[in-house]
């Protein structure tokens, strides 16, 4: 088969075996080059974060971990406000996950299972609000939050993050529930379950892994959000807000340690939800 193809394609082309090797080398070469481009900054920020303070201002620098040390990371973690801001970031992210899944998942279920008047309009409004620069609305919201006592609280930040995450969560969960066969749910109902029981006992267990991935997606949105968190807080900073507001008056090693600290969860979470990458970002972000 292969040899006959080679003959039929004539003498102009290289023999199949040689061409195969060449293609493979090109393929892996390109793939590795792009991987290096992606990994280099992560490796170098890790290298910076795990060197001595003096090592950060050394010149010229080695590309190998020649002065490995946890000094810089320790300095960052023990700096005033950092641990507190990490705590705030985690609390805000957890509140955002809880709020956006509790509010959004029922809506997603409604979009997945029901036909009703105005469905298209509602779906469209979520599509639009997904693209809307919600973070920038923290400017007018800051004024309102001051009056409501929500300014400079984790609750205020979590509220804005929930508004940012909800349109994604509702469309994601709609996709997840569409993927759970309707027959199973109906079978449970014919066997005597109420709609609620059928949902809790049949649909939820099947949807759980994807819902967990949606929760992680929400965590990433909240953990990474900089603008609103910086505008809405003063004392109760989240980690990105803390790092951003001290960019101008912090030493380089502080910033490098902070940058690396923010990246670590990214590495873990992308790994955890690697199966869902295309569903999450590929079709929902667009």
């Amino acid at each position, binding site marked *: 088969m292969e040899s006959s193809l080679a003959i039929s394609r004539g003498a102009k082309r290289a023999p199949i075996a040689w061409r195969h090797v060449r293609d493979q080398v090109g*393929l892996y070469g390109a*793939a590795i080059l*792009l*991987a290096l481009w*992606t*990994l*280099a*900054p*992560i490796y*170098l920020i890790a*290298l910076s974060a795990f060197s001595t303070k003096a090592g950060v*201002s*050394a*010149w010229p*620098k080695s*590309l190998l971990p020649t002065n490995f040390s946890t000094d810089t990371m320790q300095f960052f973690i023990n700096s005033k406000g950092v641990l507190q801001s990490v705590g705030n970031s985690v609390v805000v992210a957890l509140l955002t996950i809880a709020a956006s899944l509790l*509010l959004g998942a029922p*809506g997603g279920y*409604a*979009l997945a299972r029901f036909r009703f008047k105005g469905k298209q309009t509602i779906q469209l409004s979520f599509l639009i*609000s997904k*693209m*809307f*620069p*919600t973070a*920038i*609305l923290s*400017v*007018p*919201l800051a004024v*309102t939050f001051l009056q409501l006592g929500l300014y400079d609280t984790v609750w205020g930040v979590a509220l804005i993050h*929930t*508004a940012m995450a*909800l349109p994604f969560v509702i469309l994601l969960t709609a996709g997840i529930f569409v993927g759970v066969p309707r027959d199973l749910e109906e079978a449970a109902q014919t066997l005597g379950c109420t709609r609620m029981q059928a949902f809790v006992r049949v649909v939820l267990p099947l949807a759980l892994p994807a819902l967990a991935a949606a929760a992680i997606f929400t965590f*990433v949105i909240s*953990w*990474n959000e*900089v*603008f609103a968190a910086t505008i809405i807080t003063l004392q109760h900073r989240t980690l990105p807000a803390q*790092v*951003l*507001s001290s*960019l101008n008056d912090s030493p*380089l090693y502080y910033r*490098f340690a*902070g*940058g690396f600290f*923010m*990246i670590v969860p*990214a*590495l873990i979470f*992308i790994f955890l939800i*690697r199966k869902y*990458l*295309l569903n999450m*970002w*590929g*079709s929902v*972000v*667009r």
Partner: protein
Amino acid sequence: MRSKVESALPYGLLAPTLLVVVLLIVVPIFQAFLLAFQGSDGGFTLAQFQKMVHDTAFLDALKFTFLLLIFIVPLQIILALAMALLIHKRFRGHSIFLYIYAIPLAISDLAAGIAWLSIFTERGYLNSILHSLGIIDKPFLFLSYQNLPAVFGTIVIAESWRATAIVMVILLAGLEVIPRDYFEAADVFGATALKRTLFVVLPLLRPSLQNALIIRTIFAFQTFSVVLALAGRVIPVLTGEAYYWYAANRNPNVAAAYAVLVMVFTIFITIMYFRLLKTTDAEAGYD
């Protein structure tokens, strides 16, 4: 017949989300306009906008926001297309490469800016490499206001690096819905890889490419912390100015004027987006 309760159920399930969207997105939009257009006497005023426009950083912010967009978006699409096409070949080990290419998805623009700062700073890794290659004697100041094109370039690189991952997954998701027969047909007819990409893959991928293009354009208006991390205010951008007016100048009104400007650009592009989407809905198989 379905009962009344049953037919009201979907609205009940959607109500909480709609309430949040109204309270935290729709209402604040009006408030942003109020803050930007309302004077201290409660009447209509353009004073905030005049203050915004006459600020020395305004025109630069407008210029750099659009320049960044023009440089970053095409670069992202090209890099992302290369990654997506490679992964789509499903070679042995492709899932490891997919994971690697996807890592920046979960990295904030602030963290990305700081990561590249470690490369471009005066005593950073790029200068170290250039030094060891004997190209320079003493560090080149990539991030000095005296080398504006260089500063600009570092931002383009950092932001392209980060957001390429997002474009990559959009394009890869688009490639996945193209039936494999199409690619095989092209092979059977002896198309070269380049011809196949240009004449078979790209036209079929058009809906995803358009989506990626418009999404990235919209989000380009929100670029700010990557710029702040690398350049401070040497390169002003619109969202960054909103931040400065609010946080440093304590002027929520001018900050709101910037917010309104960013919103107007976004809404304009979103409308374009839905016009395009309407025509490509069927091809994309999107619902």
